[in-house]
């Protein structure tokens, strides 16, 4: 029974800080925030940073991976016109979604076109 209890406690300790996304900011000022992502790396970090910088209300956007052995990624956002940092992040994510949808559709379209063209060539 004791072993089982130990297992549960350890599980909780390990999982406790494993939320996908945490936000650190001053409760009085929501225009500046540092977001901590778990299980993310440069793949998403660079992407988010680029899309955040495209946003005119973002004054500062940067990301870093504090330590390569820990799967955490920090993104810092500072806005210059009073809009909350969280909503800038949301917008950036939505923009990424849109771009991906376009690329996916375009890619599938083109692959089918290529296939059809080549199938026709073969029969000729």
């Amino acid at each position, binding site marked *: 029974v004791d072993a089982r209890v130990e297992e549960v406690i350890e599980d909780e300790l390990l999982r406790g800080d494993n939320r996908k996304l945490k936000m650190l900011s001053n409760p009085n000022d929501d225009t500046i925030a540092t977001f901590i992502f778990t299980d993310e790396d440069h793949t998403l970090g660079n992407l988010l940073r680029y899309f955040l910088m495209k946003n005119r209300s973002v004054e500062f956007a940067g990301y870093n991976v504090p330590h390569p052995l820990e799967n955490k990624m920090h993104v810092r956002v500072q806005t210059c016109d009073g809009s909350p940092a969280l909503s800038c992040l949301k917008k950036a994510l939505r923009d990424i979604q849109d771009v991906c949808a376009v690329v996916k559709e375009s890619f599938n379209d083109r692959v089918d076109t*290529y296939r059809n063209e080549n199938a026709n060539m073969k029969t000729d």
Partner: protein
Amino acid sequence: VDVLSVANDSIVFKLSNCDVSIANALRRILISEVPTIAIDFVEVMENSSVLHDGFLAHRLGLVPLLSDQADEFKYARDCNCDDPPCQACGVRLTLDVECSEAGVVEVTCGDLLSAYEVVRPVSQASHDAVHAVEGEVESRGILLCKLVKGQKLKLECVAKKGIGKEHAKWSPVSCATFKYDPIVELNHERLAELTLDERQSIAKSCPTEVFDIEDGKLMVQDVARCMLCNECTRTAAQITAASAGGGGGGGGSRAPLVRIAKDERQFTFTVETVGSLAPKDVVHKALQVLVGKVKHLLQELPTVEIN
């Protein structure tokens, strides 16, 4: 997006009007986050071959398995089954080869028998040319081990779903690269002032034959072959320096003979797969993974903990 070529094991396509961060994210996901199925657990019943158990297990893990159904499987850590692996999180494969006559018996991945037909080692057999690797001589499969008379190999494997991040055996690509599309501009006005020999030396300095001399004029024959190595610019600069000699003061302000630049919004991707997934499927899945990541984050946003 523009697809340039599709082969059985590779695909070349162009991505335009995107930033490098999208291209890089796609490349990173292609290499390390597209799920495939590979052998992850090996139980050795009998092994009298020259290779030790761990060696064989390592080789077995690297064997590419057809992974079109990878999405239907659960990760073993997420599965609640009592007796792993169950149908939903893993596939059993067995290998049983014995060498009873004189001579050498080659144990290949063609000897691996799968409990679930759909997930089996990639092979070159003609009926199985689903994702066959091009250019290979018809063979029974990847060589795992060689046995001599009296040696026997009997083992049971479990293949599970995973991603390249955890171990390279789960990476569906052997090579996923992208490069900027080059821009090559020639200043014909100034080039006309050079001798034919000098123009020829510029053309020859290019290691990939981007240039050609037509009617004594230097022309760009194939922009796509440019590697952005700047050999031609260097040769051109040498020529300018040599001819300017003492009067080098005015040289710097004139436009360069050859200008090499990269088009920062156009990328050419080359993706070569290992056989576990078809090239167009790999790219499609990679894009799906990216979309999934973003979706997951958007879902988490409302419940973000604020400190």
